[in-house]
């Protein structure tokens, strides 16, 4: 698959290396001549010197036949513009942007970037996951529909402990998909399943209903 990476910093460098290893055709764009030379020395002709936000540079790089476009510089405005030009001028089907300021993740999505990735948010999610008292962990967010896959832990004192699923007032757009109980095989909970302390639930929900779901399952 042909992929373009804008920005040859440490993120671009390691992405390029990993994706080449997977057998993809990669082209890195960077404004800095020294960086391009370093790429050339190590990986052959995979780097072109140029501004990844300039239409002419992108045309020369053959962006119109790229299937994936990754903007990985440390400037959010550059990543946004590069992705928008790749998408709207060259019709790249999948644009991915590195987001440096976490609050731009939502803005980038709104402005048409297919997949904005905030490293800070990713690290935060891992911290959430490692803190055992945190009752709700975000596992996956899907696109503009704001569908969430979350994991909720039933804590000591949660009002749902000892209750059956049908007695919970779950939001209508949320479903409990899987029940993980210590020492047992994961099972799909039914209306009659009774929840216990330390149960872990994998649930499908939406950003809007997530709070109600957490309240119903995990709060006291």
């Amino acid at each position, binding site marked *: 698959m042909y992929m373009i990476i804008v920005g040859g910093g440490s993120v671009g460098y390691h992405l390029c290396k990993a994706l080449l290893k997977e057998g993809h055709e990669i082209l890195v764009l960077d404004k800095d001549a020294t960086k391009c030379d370093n790429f050339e020395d190590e990986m052959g002709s995979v780097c072109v010197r140029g501004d990844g*936000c*300039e*239409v*002419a540079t992108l045309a020369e790089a053959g962006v119109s036949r790229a299937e994936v476009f990754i903007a990985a510089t440390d*400037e*959010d*405005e*550059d990543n*946004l*513009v590069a992705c*928008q*030009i790749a998408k*709207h*001028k060259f019709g790249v089907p999948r644009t991915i942007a590195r987001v440096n*300021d976490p*609050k*731009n993740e939502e*803005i980038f999505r*709104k*402005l048409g970037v297919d997949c904005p990735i905030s490293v800070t948010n990713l690290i935060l999610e891992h911290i959430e996951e490692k803190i055992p008292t945190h009752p709700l962990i975000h596992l996956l967010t899907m696109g503009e529909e704001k569908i969430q896959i979350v994991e909720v832990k039933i804590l000591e004192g949660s009002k749902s402990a000892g209750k059956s699923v049908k007695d919970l007032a779950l939001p209508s757009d949320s479903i409990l998909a899987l029940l993980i109980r210590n020492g047992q095989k994961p099972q799909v909970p039914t209306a009659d399943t009774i929840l216990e302390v330390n149960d872990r639930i994998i649930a499908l929900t939406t950003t809007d209903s997530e709070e109600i779901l957490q309240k119903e399952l995990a709060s006291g």
Partner: protein
Amino acid sequence: MKIVIMGCGRVGAQLASLLDSDGHKITVLDVDAHSFRRLPPSFGGTALVGDGTDEEVLRKAGVGEAGAFVAVTQGDNRNVMAAQIAKHVFNVPKVLCRIYDPLRKDVYETLGLEAVSPTTVFAQLLRDKLLSA
């Protein structure tokens, strides 16, 4: 009308000063407080230090209540990003931005952003002046 101007360079400062004397309520944003020296002593608006590509800064500058937003920093991409946030997040009715790169300006105009390329305008102006002499 409340107008927020991002970038207090020569153009930003002069525009702020013109609109201020026309009686508009102006807020000028710049990342460098030193840039505000360009505003005339008579300037009656607000000068605010901050990065206009930051949603929080725009909110503080009152972009939510502004009738117009103008992005005139030195960076094309910064202008484009701030203008899009003003237009699509804060729903400012009139948004203008400067894009030096003419090709980039064309792309954003097809995306519905109102932009001016000083490069094109100035080149045309020089040509006209040369040929009319």
